[in-house]
């Protein structure tokens, strides 16, 4: 027993703590990679299908937009429960870091897709039109204009999304997904060991700071709009 002390560091199993830290980082990075890819694709789809006169395209935009809004509105903790059967089918288990991935991705991708769409809309119409006037194809416009010109916004959006994903991994951890959230809940909260809760918190804060730092650094490196 630790008498509720926050500073009984002898009670911390650093091996477990390290493993949990790694699980958190792994869940964050793997889900973020998937979220980045899906988010950019969905954002691009939303961007390209707005302002179309074609009825089918309009309908597609409406449906995707609606789904994105729906999934963005579902609280994460409820989304996990909602996706349990699908997760079980997909991953074969509902426990452990891998099991957390589907819900992490499904919750963050729509969030990021909206940011991507917004970033594309912020590009000057004139620049896209100049590319068109030079004979660029739709695809060339995407990878030579839309992506590079919105890169700072895409990266800062990805940073924000990554940080909220770290929060989600902790929540997922509390219901069995592993990682620091899981450790803090089982070994900390349920065992009344406040030290473990505190240490897990500090590590999560450090992880968040590191991602924020990397994101800010990259944005500063890429952004050539003002010097």
């Amino acid at each position, binding site marked *: 027993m630790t008498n509720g002390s926050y500073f009984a560091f002898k009670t911390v199993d650093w091996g477990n703590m390290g493993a949990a830290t790694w699980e958190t980082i792994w869940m964050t990075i793997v889900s973020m990679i998937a979220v980045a890819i899906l988010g950019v694709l969905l954002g691009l789809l939303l961007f390209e299908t707005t302002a179309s006169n074609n009825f089918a395209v309009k309908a597609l935009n409406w449906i995707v937009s609606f789904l994105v809004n729906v999934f963005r509105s579902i609280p994460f903790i409820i989304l996990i429960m909602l996706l349990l059967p699908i997760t079980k089918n997909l991953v074969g288990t509902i426990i452990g870091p891998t099991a957390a991935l589907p819900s992490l991705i499904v919750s963050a991708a729509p969030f990021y897709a909206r940011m991507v769409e917004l970033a594309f809309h912020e590009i000057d119409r004139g620049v896209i039109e*100049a590319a068109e006037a030079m*004979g660029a194809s739709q695809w*060339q416009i995407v990878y030579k204009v839309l992506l590079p010109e919105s890169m700072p916004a895409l990266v800062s959006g990805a940073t924000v999304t990554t940080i909220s994903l770290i929060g989600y991994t902790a929540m997922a951890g509390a219901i069995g997904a592993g990682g620091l959230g899981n450790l803090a809940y089982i070994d900390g909260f349920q065992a009344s060991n406040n030290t473990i809760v505190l240490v897990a918190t500090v590590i999560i804060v450090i992880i968040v700071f590191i991602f924020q730092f990397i994101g800010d650094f990259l944005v500063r490196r890429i952004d050539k709009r003002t010097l």
Partner: protein
Amino acid sequence: MIEFKDVTKTFNTKEGDLTAVADVNLTIEDGEIYGIVGYSGAGKSTLTRMLNGLETPTGGEIDINGDKITGLSGSELRQKRQKIGMIFQHFNLLWSRTVLKNIMFPLEVAGVPRKERKEKAQHLVDLVGLTGRENSYPSELSGGQKQRVGVARALANDPEILISDEATSALDPQTTDEVLDLLLEINKKMNLSIVLITHEMHAIRKICDHVAVMDSGRVVEQGTVFNVFRNPQQEITKRFVNEEVDPSLSDTNIVLDDLIKSYPNGTIVQLVFHGDQAKLPIVSEIIHQYPDLQVSIIEGSIHQTQEGAIGTLYLQLIGNSDNVDGAMALLKKMRVETEVIHHD
């Protein structure tokens, strides 16, 4: 050669149909600089955007060197666009690319091999006078320098036509002249046709061969710059020409009013002379032949156009009617256009 044949463009807007371009017929010869002038909303941009398929005409057709451009789509249209350079009022450069890479953009689009791309872009950097700034980003350049990048980029794929849509409107007068000089130089060097949209007659006069005046979607007047400046027909053209030939026209009118008041007996005439006439000693000739006539110069200006000089001069003549009539006859003999503004 570019031919607009009965070209019409109607937009369906929420407020109803809007005809931005109406029945335009224009022919632009190879190697000439064709100016299109008109007030905001006249349809200039819409007209030229149909040239590279950024807009599709709702009526008529456009031919470039005998090929029908209207109705092209997909890769055919993109191929054609590579041969039509365009420069813009707000430059529309990619801020994420350096000067050199911006100029390489159209070459990438056209699938030019890497090494060749670089050489060509470097050559264009030199041509537009930006040597040494290859690796700068647009945000590090002045407006004039940005437009030079725009020009270099527009020239990358050896276009047949260059469209300039208000390309100098965001620049100060000095930089405007630099960019216009650059366009003229390119036009001469490469025998490239240029379509120059502007609302400044100054730009037209300085570098254009022909000019079309647009008003509410229609071309209301067209001809050589020289003729249009000398003899504007439409009210709107006169306004444009006056603004330019004589920016201080309103001042002159005040001076004229004063003079008419203070010299009720005087005859005030406006002289317009062209080309070599501007070099003739017209005033001294009048004084020489009619020594009793008092001649005072109220206001005068001379402007250079591509075809020669155009000058205006306001004179006040005081004396008996024989002398005045004689002087007028002399001016007529020297083939100077005269207009009596006030007579007693």
